């Protein structure tokens, strides 16, 4: 094993490890394969966690397939404080000199990574959608720009660590060969000026109202093919499984009074939407609806007419009864 270290920030969510860590670890393991090819030896994979972890969580880190777990603890780290956390992590980095440092681009990751960039005088790439080594060994970080319309390669050739934040959910979790990682405790030295600038007073867990469709990241949209009032409710139930989601409708569904919220109508005379995911159910694809969804990143359409126009503008085509497919989909979502 080489002296190179790939750090992966394991987010500590009230004593439990955020899933994004496992995604990043899976990717790091894949990167290590290429690194081994290039360098003859793999890098060390290191989980970095801040604050006390429950025993189960610590075990899940130890057995996650990483080589080392750095556990940074201090009484000042029991509550999240970005200033203290980034200072603590920076001190560890100065000591251990990682080669690469990966964060999930969560609220926490997107705050810590750029702070660390300043403290360590190095580059940070944001919201990466892919990471790879090229044949010269350069670490290439693909970042989206212009709302994802363009992808740009970012390199940090001269400074270390090469810090990247990665969109959660981009990388699949793979089960790595279990091994027992070495746990290294680290106690940072934190002076009071860092400590009391920011105080976390409270955490408010959301109870969310439905979002306006134009702000939603996932839209479940129903059309005339939903058939009747009672069938409409499945759209709401499915939307509940997605963050920042909303239910949309077409003009005919509105005219049928299956929904009374005309603010959710999508199309020329309604809203233009640009969600990450759009699922259209029972929609034929009249132009004045299609205009409103053309900027969606990913379009799934369900219609019983296999020649429906909507399929021409869809990423995924499902021919079938909208209600039956949605019902099966909901049953599958329950298992998540």
């Amino acid at each position, binding site marked *: 094993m080489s002296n190179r270290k790939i750090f992966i920030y394991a987010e500590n969510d009230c004593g439990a490890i955020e899933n994004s860590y496992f995604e990043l670890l899976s990717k790091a393991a894949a990167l290590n394969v290429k690194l081994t090819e290039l360098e003859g030896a793999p890098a060390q994979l290191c989980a970095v966690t801040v604050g006390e972890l429950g025993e189960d969580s610590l075990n899940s880190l130890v057995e996650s397939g990483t080589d080392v777990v750095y556990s940074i603890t201090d009484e000042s780290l029991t509550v*999240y404080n*970005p*200033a203290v956390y980034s200072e603590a992590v920076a001190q560890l980095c100065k000591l251990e000199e990682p080669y690469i440092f990966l964060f999930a681009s969560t*609220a926490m990751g*997107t*705050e810590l990574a*750029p702070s660390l*960039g*300043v*403290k360590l005088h*190095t*580059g940070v790439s944001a*919201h990466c959608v892919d990471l790879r080594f090229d044949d010269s060994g350069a670490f*290439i970080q693909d970042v989206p*720009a212009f*709302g994802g319309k*363009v*992808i*740009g*390669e*970012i*390199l*940090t050739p001269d400074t270390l660590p090469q810090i990247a934040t990665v969109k959660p*959910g*981009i990388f*699949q979790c793979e089960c790595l060969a279990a091994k027992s990682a070495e746990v290294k405790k680290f106690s940072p030295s934190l002076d009071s000026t860092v400590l009391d*600038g*920011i105080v*976390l007073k*409270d*955490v*408010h867990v*959301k*109870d969310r109202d439905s979002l306006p469709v134009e702000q939603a*990241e996932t839209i479940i949209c129903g059309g005339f093919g939903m058939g009747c009032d009672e069938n409409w409710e499945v759209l709401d139930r499915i*939307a509940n*499984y*997605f*963050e920042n*989601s909303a239910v949309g409708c077409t003009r005919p569904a509105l005219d049928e009074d299956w929904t009374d919220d005309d603010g959710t109508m999508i199309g020329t005379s309604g809203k233009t939407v640009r969600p*990450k995911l759009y699922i259209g159910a029972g929609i034929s694809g009249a132009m004045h609806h299609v205009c409103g969804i053309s900027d969606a*990143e*990913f*379009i799934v359409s369900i219609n019983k007419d296999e020649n429906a126009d909507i399929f*021409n503008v*869809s*990423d*995924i*085509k*499902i*021919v*079938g009864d909208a209600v*039956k*497919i949605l019902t*099966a*989909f909901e*049953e*599958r*979502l329950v298992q*998540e």
Partner: protein
Amino acid sequence: MNIGVLVKPVPDPEQYNSITIDPETKRLNRSGVPTIVNPSDKCAVEAALKLKEKFGGKIVIFTMAPPDGREKLMEVLAMGADEAVLVSDREFGGADTLATSYTLVKAVEKKSAESESFDLILSGNESADGATGHVPAQVGEMLGFNHLSAIVQIVAEGEGRPDSLTVFQKIENGKNEFEIKLPAVIGVTRDINKPRYTSAMGVIKAKKKPFDTYDCEALSPDKSRIGIEGSPTKAGAIFTPDTGRKSEELSGSPEEIAEELVKRIKAIGVTINSGGGCRE
């Protein structure tokens, strides 16, 4: 309360679909896409105006941009900001977030030295084009101010200039409530407010407000920390992701289709929450 607001002109995000990459030169072609004030930066200006209405003081806008950035600064002055500083020099070009933050910090420090120091620096949490969200944190680090990103609400209580602010930060499953001591840097998201409309009266006043342009000489920065040279990250190739719609058919029983659909949805990075507890 003296507030600095960091503002960036960006190509209008409503028209990102018409941005292309020239197949020959591999350069970005954004011709015909108008430049606007970055939407969340406008929210930062609005937040500053609200704080000024309560506590008094002045609002200074900072933009690092080519000379035509002046136009966008005028827009923000028309909204009601008091002064503007255009940080503009060829030598600043090609900066990544670290070099940009450094350059902005030099400008903020120069302005502070010339008049009064700032109690608060506000900025949009991220720009619509690059969307790194790094600048508020990095400016905060470099100024030695407390800093927080992704703020959706600022509560300023009491009379007179406050020592600290209560702010709410957007996190995955809700909000963190922080108390942050001033001076501070705060990155705000578009959830924080709806920026006011610019009035005709505001437009007329804009031109009469103090306007400074700082070039490289004026800031006398450490040249190893600005522009392309001062940027630890380098840009490699750019490409457009394949966005052609494949109309790929999923077939099988409804259950099989559902199974495959879940897989596809996860593959594009959309999170499915267990229990369907996302919405009421």
